[in-house]
Structures are given as C-alpha cells and as structure tokens.
C-alpha cells in the first residue's frame, strides 16, 4: 500500500508515466468499443504494430540522411515519432478501409499480412540502426518510464480532443456502425463519418503506441471492451465499464510493476488478461456469456412471439 501512495504522490519521480498510463487506459477502450462492435478486432492488433513501424521509420530518417543524432532535441525526436506513427496508421487505415469497401479477398488475411509485414519491417529497420540502443527500442517496446512534460501534455490534449469528438458525434458514429442503410435514408454521409471514426482511431492508436507501446495499446484497445461487453446492458454502461476498467487496470498495473520491479507494459496487459479470465468465469456462472444469452433469447422467442401476436 505504501508503494501505491508513493506513485500517487505529486512528487513521485515517474508521475508523468503514471498519468500517461492512466490517460491511455481510460481513452483507448472508448475507441476500442468501436473496433469490437464493428468486428475489427484484428485491426486492433495490426494498427499498433503498423504505428510502431511508423515510429521506427520516422526516427531512422535523420540517420538515412546522414544527420547527427546528438543534434536533435528530445522534443523534435518525439514530434517526428508522432508524425511517423500517425502517418503510417492513417495510411494503413485508409488503405484497409478502401479494400474493405471493395469487398475483395479476406479481411483477416489482409490484416494478418499487414501485422507481420509491419513487425518484420520494424525489426529490419532497427537492426541497421546504430542508435537503437539509445532508447528507441524501449519506445517501441513501451517502456513507460521516460515521459517528459511535453509528451504528457501532448498526449493529454490529443486524447481530450478524441474524447470530445466521440462525445459530440457518438450519435452519427453509432448509427453508421449499426445500420448504414438507415443512416443513408436519413441523409447521413456514411463515408464522411467512417473517415471521422478512422481518424479518431488512428490518432488514439498513434498516441497510445508512442506513449506506452504497441503491446499495451492493443491490450487497452480490446480487452476492457471485451470484458465490458459481457456485463453491459446498455451502450452507456458498455462505454463506462470499458473506460473505467482500462483506467483502473493501468493504475493497478503500474503499482504492481513498481512494487515488484516488473516492466509496466507487460504487467498491465497480464493484469487485463487476468481480469478477462475472471470476468468470463463470472459471466459463465451468471449465464451472461454470448452463447448462453443467445440460447436464452431463442428459448424466449417462442413465448414472446405468442405475446406479440396477442397484442
């Protein structure tokens, strides 16, 4: 408990890392909800990896141009990493969305290929990068330790923008995700709202990867949303449970990592995995797993149809 009080103290040396973890923990699940609902879980795996490849490429450009690494400030390095991350993520999202709309080939195959190619490219780039040991590999692995005030402010501002956009446009984003034909008959521009959703997704993934790495980004995008889906009765509950679970898990994960001297990222993801396992057992006992819900609905259908018929 003493270590928990330490990491919550404003004088804690790694306070920026704690705040960033918690911000990512709260924000990622809110975007992850859309990945789960639109059945784009594989995209949640592929995008953080592609984003981290963008970081590797962006940080390698000065070396390829023969520039001196020592001449670059940490802030300019971070800005370049962010630019690379968001550029790769958005290009990947737009290409994958375009291929999805054309409806050719297997989406899972495309996403799987994008994931392994991005991972391989990252390794290849870093293998030839003599400055990898200066911390870039740590950045890509998600060692949440050296986060400056600038990094924290950038993450906080951008995530606030994402959350504000989600709050303002949730009607349109949910409508085009749930019933595209209805959205079109109401005069909504579904392509525009898809692009807005993908932009928010790309921005969040890029920030999360840059702050905490692809492993944790994937964990926080998907696992809280999957846990929340087992218990939520309404969309509001779904969003609240997912976001709270992400935020609380990031804090507890950081606490465990600090108290037992583990790396933060893997500790967070393991904790989320344990939460998911426990949640699944509770849901199975309470009859809330998807298969049990479905069979209950089917059993109810016969009786309900008669009730409707009598109305």
């Amino acid at each position, binding site marked *: 408990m003493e270590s928990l009080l330490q990491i919550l103290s404003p004088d804690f040396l790694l306070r920026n890392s704690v705040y960033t973890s918690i911000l990512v923990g709260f924000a990622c699940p809110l975007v992850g909800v859309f990945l*789960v*609902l639109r*059945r784009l879980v594989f995209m949640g795996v592929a995008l953080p990896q592609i984003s981290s490849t963008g970081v590797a490429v962006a940080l390698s450009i000065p070396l390829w141009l023969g520039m001196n690494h020592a001449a670059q400030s940490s802030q300019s390095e971070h800005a370049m990493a962010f630019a690379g991350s968001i550029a790769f993520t958005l290009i990947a999202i737009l290409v994958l969305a375009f291929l999805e709309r054309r409806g050719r080939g297997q989406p899972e195959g495309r996403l799987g290929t994008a994931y392994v190619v991005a991972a391989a490219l990252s390794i290849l780039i870093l293998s030839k990068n003599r400055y990898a040991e200066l911390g870039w590999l740590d950045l890509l692995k998600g060692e949440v330790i050296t986060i400056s005030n600038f990094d924290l402010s950038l993450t906080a501002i951008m995530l606030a923008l994402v959350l504000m956009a989600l709050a*303002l*446009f949730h*009607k*349109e984003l*949910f*409508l085009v*995700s*749930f*019933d595209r*034909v*209805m959205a*079109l*008959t*109401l*005069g*909504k521009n579904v392509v525009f709202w898809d692009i807005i959703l993908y932009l928010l997704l790309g921005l969040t993934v890029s920030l999360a990867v840059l702050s905490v790495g692809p492993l944790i980004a994937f964990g926080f995008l998907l696992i809280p949303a999957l846990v929340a*889906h087992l218990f*939520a*009765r*309404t*969309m509001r*509950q*779904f969003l609240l449970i997912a976001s709270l679970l992400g935020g609380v898990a990031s804090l507890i994960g950081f606490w465990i990592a600090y108290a037992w001297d583990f790396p933060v990222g893997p500790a967070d993801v393991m904790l989320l995995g344990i939460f998911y396992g426990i949640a699944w057992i509770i849901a199975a006992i309470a009859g809330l797993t998807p298969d049990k*819900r*479905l069979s*209950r*609905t089917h059993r*109810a*259908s*016969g009786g*309900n*149809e*008669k009730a*409707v*018929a*009598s*109305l």
Partner: protein
Amino acid sequence: MTNAIITFENLSIGYQGRPLLGDISLSIARGSFTAILGANGSGKSTMLKTVLGLIPPVAGRIALAADRGKSFVFGYVPQTTNLDPLFPFTGFDVALMGAYGRVKPGFPVPAGERAFTRECLEAAGAQGFARERFAELSGGQKQRVLIARALVTRPDILVLDEPTSGVDAAATRAVLEFISRIHREKEITVLLVTHDLPIVRRHAQQVIWLHQGRALNGPVAEMLMPERLMSIFEMEVQ
C-alpha cells in the same frame, strides 16, 4: 396519377450500368399500400435500394413528392437479421435513431424528440421493450421496435424490406395487422417488399410484380387473379 407520391419515369435499375429491370413507368399513390413481389433474384432488393436512393438508376428517373416545404423522408424498416446483435442498444436507443435525421451533428437529442420516440414505441405496441436489450428481443418484438423507429422519422412513406423474414407465423400476422392499422389510421403510404402472397392478398391494395426483367403493376384483385398468376408463373417457368 395526380395523387402520386412516387413516380417511376422510364426507369431502368441495376448495378454498374447493367439494367436488371427496364422501362418501368408507374406511380404509387399517396396513402396506398403497395407490395413489391417477385422470386429470389428478380430485383426486389435492387428496386428497394434504388427507391431509397442507395444506388442510382441506370436510366430514367424517380420523382418523389414530399409535402410542401419539406424534404422527402423514408421510414425504413430493415430485416432484423441485418442488424448486428453485438451492439448493446436498448429498444429505446434503436427507436430514437429515427430522430437523428432532424438533429444536427454535435447536438444532443432534444427532450421533445425523446417524448415523441416514446409515443411511437407506444403506438407500435413496443413500449414494454424500450428498456430491454434490442438483440435479446424476439423477431416480432424487434420488428415492432423497428416500425416505431420508422415512425419516429415522421416518414412520407414507410418502406418495409421483408419485415416478417425470420419471424414465425403468429408474429407475422400480428406485425402485418399492425402495419395495416397504422396505414389506415395515419393514412401513411406503405411500400412492402415480400414474397408472401397471402399477406399481400390480405393487406395490400396495389402490387408491383417483378419478373423476367419487367415490372407488372396493378390492383391486388387483378394481379392476384388465378388466371393472371398462372400466366406469370408460366412465364417464370419458361
């Protein structure tokens, strides 16, 4: 037809410039109950998508006559199987979507629209499902919620895409009786896509029968006469 709400003028419909149905000229009267009939692959869905504006006509045009000073609104009722059960929306959430066309992006849904949604759920006999999870409702209950959603749009025309698909016989009867009732009471125009002849005979006034690339059109009594049906089916067999 002077009282037409929808007019097809030399209309050809299909995909990517290739017509599936051609040279259709007919009118749907305001306040009428029209059924679109046809075998699988005859072009029912293509016609529906063209009417809704989801795909452009290959040739010709569709004229929509909205009330004065108001844009034309379709109250669309999809097949329940087209909606993903993964979304944890309640019946009320789904019905409220009907009001989204009148609420600007970034603005909350006003209290008046929420009250109107409750009224429509009540009118559709679906008020009891408002707080239930939509995915866990039966087929007939979902249809009632979706009809309520279509009413919330304040539609010029109610468009139903095989609304009894996946719904058992008793619920089918109840849903169609309800649609007939709101058609009579609210004098709302109904366009129903189906392949169920008994339903059409019982509820519709006008039939558009699609087969062999053409659209036959006429009153139910005439279109469903045994001799007419024989000739249509013989044409389909040939």
